[in-house]
C-alpha cells in the first residue's frame, strides 16, 4: 500500500486519473472470522467522470468509497487519490463526502451546517458567507439559510448535505447511497439536479447505489461488484450522451446498458444466500 503512485498503471489514458487502485484488498477481522470486504480490486477513475458502484449488500462498494476517503485502511494493494495516499488526500481536503443520511447537525442552521467545513479550514467570515450562498444556490436551497435541518424535508436535508460537501470546492465528490432513503419521485428530481450540478461544476463523482436505473441514468462509467469476497465483475463505459433528460430512461440504448448491468449482477451473485 506504500508503493509510489507512479508504479500503478493508469487504465484510462485520455484523462489524468483521480483515483487509482491496484490489487486493493481489505479484510475485516470479526468474531466470526475474517470478512473479505474487498479482494484484488483494480480500478482507475479519470478526471470529470461520473462513476457508479452497484452491487448487492456486502459487495464492498461502500467500503471502497471509504478507502478512497481514508475512513478505512486497506490490508493489501495500493491506492492513490490525486496522486497522493488517501491519508494525504484527506489532510489536503481533496474530496467531499455525502453519507447515506444527511448527518446535518441539528443545533446549526442550514447555513451554518454548510459553513462547518469552511470553519474547520479556517476561512474568513466573508469568504464563508460568499461560498455558502453560492453552494446553496447550486442545490436550489436559497431562502432556507436560517432554517434548522429538522424543519426541512428529507430531500431538502440531503441537498443541504450535498451543498456542505461542495462548499470547500474539492474536485472529487464521494456519494454513498445519498438518495437511498428517499422516495422515487424525490429521487428522480434529485438525480436530474445532480447531473445538472455535475455538468456545471465538472467534478469527478463516485456514486454508490443499489438502483440499476439510477446508476445507468447518472453515470459515464458503471462498476458492477459482487459480494464475498467483494470484487469488480464488470466495468461498463456508458454510451449515453452527457446531456440526459429524464425520458432517456425509456430509450433502447438505456435499456441495453441496464440489461448489461443486470447480467453482470446476476453473474456475480452466488445464489447461496
Amino acid at each position, binding site marked *: 500500500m506504500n508503493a509510489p503512485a507512479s508504479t500503478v498503471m493508469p487504465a484510462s489514458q485520455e484523462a489524468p486519473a483521480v483515483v487509482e487502485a491496484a490489487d486493493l484488498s481489505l479484510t475485516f477481522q470479526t468474531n466470526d472470522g475474517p470478512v473479505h470486504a474487498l479482494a484484488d480490486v483494480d480500478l482507475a477513475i479519470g478526471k470529470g467522470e461520473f462513476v457508479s458502484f452497484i452491487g448487492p449488500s456486502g459487495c464492498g462498494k461502500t467500503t471502497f468509497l471509504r478507502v478512497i*476517503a481514508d*475512513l478505512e485502511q486497506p490490508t493489501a494493494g495500493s491506492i492513490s487519490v490525486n496522486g497522493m495516499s488517501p491519508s494525504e488526500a*484527506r*489532510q489536503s*481536503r481533496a474530496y467531499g463526502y455525502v*453519507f447515506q443520511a444527511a*448527518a446535518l447537525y441539528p443545533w446549526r442552521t442550514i447555513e451554518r451546517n454548510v459553513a462547518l*467545513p469552511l470553519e*474547520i479550514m479556517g476561512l474568513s467570515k466573508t469568504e464563508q458567507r460568499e461560498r455558502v450562498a453560492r453552494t446553496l444556490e447550486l442545490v436550489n436551497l436559497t431562502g432556507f439559510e436560517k432554517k434548522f435541518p*429538522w424543519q426541512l424535508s428529507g430531500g431538502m436535508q440531503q441537498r443541504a448535505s450535498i451543498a456542505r460537501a461542495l462548499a470547500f470546492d474539492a474536485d472529487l465528490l464521494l456519494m454513498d447511497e445519498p438518495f437511498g432513503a428517499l422516495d422515487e419521485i424525490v429521487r428522480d428530481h434529485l438525480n436530474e439536479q445532480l447531473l445538472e450540478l455535475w455538468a456545471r461544476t465538472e467534478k469527478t463523482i463516485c456514486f454508490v447505489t443499489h438502483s440499476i436505473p439510477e446508476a445507468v441514468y447518472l453515470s459515464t462509467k458503471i462498476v458492477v461488484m459482487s459480494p464475498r469476497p467483494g470484487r469488480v465483475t464488470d466495468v461498463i463505459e456508458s454510451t449515453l450522451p452527457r446531456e440526459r433528460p429524464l425520458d432517456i430512461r425509456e430509450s433502447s440504448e438505456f435499456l441495453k446498458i441496464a440489461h448489461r448491468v443486470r447480467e453482470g449482477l446476476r453473474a456475480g451473485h452466488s445464489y447461496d444466500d
Partner: protein
Amino acid sequence: MMHLRPSWQALLAILAAVAALIMLPAAGGAAAMSGSGFALSAIALLLAGALVTSLRLRPMVSAVALFVAAHGTAWMLITGIAGGEGTAGAAYFLMLIAAWLLAWQLVTVLSGMRPASTFSNYGIRLIVPALFGIWILILWEAIVRGAGVPFILLPPPSAIGARLVNSIPILAADVNQTIFKAVLAGYVMGCGAGFAAAVLADRFLFLRRGLLPIGNMVSALPIIGIAPIMVMWFGFDWQSKAAVVVVMTFFPMLVNTVAGLAASGSMERDLMRTYASSYWQTLLKLRLPAAAPFIFNALKINSTLALIGAIVAEFFGTPVVGMGFRISTEVGRMNVDMVWAEIAVAALAGSVFYGAIALAERAVTFWHPSIRGG
C-alpha cells in the same frame, strides 16, 4: 326549561352539602356562637355552585361559579373554625369535601378548555397546577385546625406563613450562608471539576479506565461520614459545606459528560474526519453540542443534590447561621413552625435553581427532539 346534567363531582358535592345541613352544627366551643351563620351560608354557596355548573353553561361561566363556590366555602370554613379548633363535627368535614369536589370539577373544566389565544393557553397551564398547590394548603389548614392536630406534629400553613414573614431577616441570613455561599460555590466547583475530568478522561484512555471506577466509589461515600471530616479539613464556615457539595456533584457530572461525549453518531464523526478536523475542533463543534442534553441532566440532578448536601452538612458543625443549623437547633427548641418555614424556603430556592437550569436547557438544547417536540 333547562336540563340539569350534573357531573359526578357536583352531584356528590350536593349530597355532601345536604348531609352537612342535617348534621349541623359544624363546630363546638366559641365557634358555635357564630357557627350556624357561617355553616348555612357555606352550604348555600356550595349548592349554588354545584347547580350553576350542572346547567352546562359556557365553560367560562361554570369555571367562575365553581371558583367562587369552592374557595368561598373554604374561606368560610377556615375563618369560621377560628376559636373552635379541634371541635369540628361531621358537617365541617362534609362541607370541606364538597368544596374540594367543586375545586376538582373546576380543574376538570379548566383542563378541558381550548382557548384560541396562546396567552390564555399559557394562563391555563399555570392556573391548573397553582390550584392543585393551593388546595393542598387549604386541605392541610382546614383539617389540621378542624381536627385539632397538635402544633408540634404539624402546624397549619397559616402559622408557618406568619413565622416565615416575621423571620425574614433570619431566613435571609440563612439563605445567604447556605445557598449563596456553600451551595453555589460547591456546585460551580463540583460541576466544573466533573466536566473537566470527563473531557480529560475522554482524551486519555488511562484516565477513563482508572478514574471512572474511583469516581464510582466516591459517589458511594456516605455524606454523613464525609461531612464531619470536611469540617475538620476546611473549618466550620461555609467552605467545608462547599467541599461536601463538590464531592456530591462531581460524579454525576463526570458520568453524564462521559456518556454525552460518546453520544454523537459515527456518521457525524466520520464527517469531521473527512474534513481533517483536529481533536479539539471535533470536540467543540460536534461532541460537546451533542453532549449538551446529558450535561444539562447532570446540572439538574446536581442542583437538588447540592442543596441537600449543604443543608445536611450543616448538621455537623457550623457557625450560628445557615439553613441546616437552623433546622437542627429549632427542632431541639420545639419551634416546628420555624423548621417548616426553613423547609419552605429551601423548597422555593431549590425550585428556582432547578427552574433556571431548565430554562437554560431549553435555550441551549432547543434542537433536541425532547424539547422541540418530535
